[in-house]
Every structure is written in C-alpha cells, then in structure tokens.
C-alpha cells in the first residue's frame, strides 16, 4: 500500500508502468473488526486510559512519527524521515510504557490539568499482508485530532497512519504504527500525545 508521496507521484505514468494496484479489501467482518479496534483505541486515548491502551500493543510494537520536510520533486524520496533520521517518535514498548508512566503522574504538568482531545479516525483501508501468512493486516487510516488545553491552547493533528495489526490472544494488537502528520513544522508546543 502506498504510504507517502514519492518522486514518481507527480509524474505522468510511463506507458510501460502499471497503474497503482487497487488494494484487495479484507472481508466485511474483518473490516468491521479492524475499524472497531481503531475506534476503541481512539476512545481509550481520548479518555487518557493509557494502561488500557498499552494492552492493545504487541510486545514487538514499533511506534514512529517521522519528521517531514519540504523537498523539490526530485528529492521526494527523502521527504519523510526513515529510522536513520530524527523524528518525533521512534518508540518500542519499553519507551511507550515509560511515556505512559510519566503522563500518569500528577506532576506531569503538561497534562495536569489535562487537555481535552478528540480523535477522529477515518479512511480505514485494510489489506492482508501478503508477505506474512500470520493473519496480520496492513491498515492505512487517517487520524484528525483536536486538542484543547487550558483556555485557548488549541492544536490540530492531521495525518495518516500506516499500521500493522496482528492477532493476539484477546483480539487484535497493534504491532506497528507510523504516523505521517501533514506538517513539516509542527504548529504545536508539543506533540506528546499518541495518535
């Protein structure tokens, strides 16, 4: 599934090149299960139930938010940072647990008093991961979050997420997430919320 714009994105498609393949959707039950998983996850985060959110993560979870930069067409391959670049998040389960442990303290001043966050999750496209036969799904979704804090401290976080979900003993688990915000300069004092 296409993740970001590329050097090829803006060019006329060469005659010999094939069109972008239409994703083969999962069946309706699976689509519903995946959507409900993402909505539930968003609800837990909106309600700051971070311990419960951690339960939705696979042991091997990778959670990234690359930085994005302004590049001319020819350089678009480097428009979104990889793991060798500096990003906004590059987490594993241990560091996510650490972040949660911090924000759950009364002296985590940036979140006490807490912000009010509403996450909308849309455009959920799920496909089976062809490379693995383990019941995992590649899921692309759009997140659009609004955060209001204190009086008039407001932020909007909009981007798409490239996830891998896999089955765990109690249902789906988030095994990978890469959040591609649409911003190059984040117009916020912090992005230390989970999207």
């Amino acid at each position, binding site marked *: 599934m296409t993740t970001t714009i590329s050097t090829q994105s803006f060019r006329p498609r060469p005659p010999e090149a094939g069109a972008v393949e239409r994703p083969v959707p999962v069946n309706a039950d699976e689509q519903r299960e995946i959507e409900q998983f993402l909505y539930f996850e968003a609800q837990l985060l909106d309600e700051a139930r971070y311990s419960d959110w951690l339960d939705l993560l696979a042991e091997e979870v990778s959670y990234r*938010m690359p*930085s994005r*930069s*302004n*590049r*001319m067409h*020819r*350089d678009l391959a480097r428009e979104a940072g990889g*793991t*060798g*670049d*500096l*990003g*906004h*998040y*590059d*987490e594993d389960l241990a*560091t996510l647990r*650490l*972040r949660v*442990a*911090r*924000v759950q*303290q009364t*002296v*985590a*001043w*940036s979140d006490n008093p807490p912000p009010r966050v509403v996450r909308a999750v849309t455009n959920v496209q799920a496909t089976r991961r062809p490379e693995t036969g383990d019941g995992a799904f590649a899921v692309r979704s759009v997140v659009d979050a609004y955060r209001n804090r*204190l*009086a008039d*401290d407001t932020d909007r976080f909009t981007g798409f997420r490239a996830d891998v979900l896999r089955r765990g003993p109690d249902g789906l688990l988030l095994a990978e997430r890469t959040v591609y915000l649409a911003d*190059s*300069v*984040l*117009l*916020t*004092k*912090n*992005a*230390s919320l989970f999207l």
Partner: protein
Amino acid sequence: MSTTSSTGPSTAPGELIDLDTGTLHREVFESEPLLRTELATVFTRSWLFLGHESQLRRPGDFITAVMGQDHVIVTRGRDERIRAFLNVCRHRGMRVCRADSGSTPRFTCSYHGWSYDGTGALVEVPNHDDGYEGRLPLDRWGLVPVTRVESYRGFVFGCWDAEAPTLHDYLDAYRGVLDWAVDGLDRPELVGPIKWRLQGNWKLAAEQFANDTYHPQTAHLSATSLLDVNMPSQGRELGSRYGHGWTIILPEDPNYTAFTFGRTPEDAAPGHQALIHGTVFPNFSMLADRVLRVWHPRSVDDMEIWSWVMVDSGWSVEQRRQAMRMATLTFSSTGIVETDDSENWSEIQAVAGGHVTGRTALNYQMGLGTTTTGDPAVPGFTGDVGHILNDVGARAFYRRWLELMEGPVPELPQTAPAPMPAPSQH
C-alpha cells in the same frame, strides 16, 4: 515585590533590567518594539548558528536557515567554500529557495525566473535583452550575502556585523563545549532538524538553557522521578563576556551519567566535565553535548524550535538510531522532559499583556554576590562562575543583551539599489 513607578509602557532596555539587583522587567518578553530592536542589534551583531558542514558535504548542497527573522540559504560552492545569502530574490522579494535542503547548482526564482548560482551571483534574467535592453548590471543584483560566514569544528555560523570579533574569539571558552559535541566522533554528522512552534518569547528558552539547573526538580519531576535521577549538585554555572551561559557537571556527581545521556566519566571529555545545557548567545543552545537547538523569534510571542542530534556517520544503524531515540524520548517535540519546558514557556507568555503584570519585576537573584571570576574546577575560564544553582548564566545573557540593545546597528551589506544605465540612443 518592587515595581517601576512609570505610568506608561517602558521600552528603554536599560530601564527593564537591573543587573545589580538581579531583576528583570517582564516587558523584556512582551514588547513588540523591543523585538524589532533585537532583530536590528542582537541578531545582526551576534554570530548565529546556521548548520553543520556535514549537511553540506558536496558542492551544490544547500540548507535553509533563519537569522532572527531573516531567511537565508547556506550552500557549498563549486570552490568548496560555504556561503550564505538572504533567501530573497532581488527582483520582487520572492523566496528563492523553497526547499528545506537539497542540492542544486542554481537557485531560480519561481516568480519571474531570475537565477542565481552557488556564489549568489545573478546569472540569468529572462528577457534581459528585450525587457531591460541588456542594461541590468547583473553583478549589482546578486543575492545579498551574509557579511561573514565562519566555522568552528564544522559548526557554521553567520554574522551581519563586519566589526564583530572572529567566530573563534566570539565563542571564547564555549569552544570547549562545542569540542565535547564532536570529540570522539570520527565523522560527525548533524541529523535533523525537527521543527515545531510554540507560544513563548525566544529568550525564555535561550536563557533557560544558558542558566537554569534549578527547574528540573520541579518542572521535570515526572520524568526525573521515573528515570530515578536526582538533581545534580556537583557542577558549575558559567557566564561569559559575550553572553554565553552554560552548566557543567563534574564527574563526582552521582547523577553524572543521567545528565549526560548515558555517557560515563570514563568515556566523556578529558577532565570528565560534561555539559548539562548551554546557550551560545543569543539563540543556539545545546543539551548534554549532542542535542542542538536554535530558538527562532517568530514574533514577540512565538518561537520556532529547530532541533538536531549530533551522531557519527560511521556508527552502526542501531547505534545511530539509539542516539536519536534517546533525544526523541527526552528532549524533542514529544520529549517527556521537554514537554514540561514548553508548558512553562507558553504559559509564561499566555499571562503576558496585563498592565500590572508587565510592570512587575522578575527574580534573577540566585547566587547574586557569590560568583567568582574563574574557578579551579574550570581551568582557563576567566568569566563569571557560580555554583550549579546560580543565575550567573542568565545575568551574563542579559548583560550582553543589554549591551547590544543599547549599542549601534551595524552597517549592513550593500543593499542599495543599483541604477540602470541609460538606454543607448537609436
């Protein structure tokens, strides 16, 4: 709490800061006229960080940067020399280069097509013959060059003031701090920046990094308690003549490793001292040797943060990633430490603007009267030194700020219009 007795807004910098009593009038963070003065003096007479040579390895490589509110292009020419110019077309003022970085032999304006080479020279003007009758003196309409561009150990700085000290002299003892950032790296590579924007005057961040080791025990309690870190006690706070301030930790401090991002005294700099935080006046800061910062003044109320991490190109993929993850986790747009810094800066600014608030003095008195000139723990340093809990770094910062705010505006590069020769008679 003392207040000024003036009845109206005061904008004379000298009335806002009293270094003898260690008080600072809050308007310093709130006045739009003061920001305009800062841009004309502080940001033109100081050496400003532009980038690192590792970002410009090949001729044609460029990055964009900001000096105060002046946008610039920094590029390596075919002659290998690094230059910087205003990122502004001389024709109608369009931003010439709209990419953050890349490589190009030419910067061509997307408005009318004026085109400049890697030395900033104007090399092509569409319709020069039929529009200008070939009369434009192209050599007078090149991109405006930053007056001086100099490097120290790969750190590239620019300055608009021809009379400023050399970068070497300007950095003064802070050269040793920059050394710590690259010592032990075979091939230093600056990675980033990530950028974000927040409410808060730029000086709030710059002075904190120059000075403040007092706040972590309160502001960062959520992070430090979790990481099992206590306040450092064995260190020094330094303030130098040109306004740089920094805090070092000594190897005997039990929290040494925690405050140096995992470095132990054994693998740290010679003498085992290490940086906790510091600021090269006015707005280039560092954290624990390897995280670099610029606090750009977007407006009097807002700053834009650019943050980088110094790594070694030769490190393994995992080692490189680990260095950046450490910075991301702690000091970044999402850092568990920094999140509480930005809360303070933005909420300080959020309550600005009140008439009484603006007239209330703030306290920079910690360690007043206890500082020494030099200190046995910091051989060779001849500036002001205090205990790790001491506002000496902030007082040095504002001493220099005041000096520049009350000083002259430097002569700027030749930006006067070049007359066009008269058309030839037919």
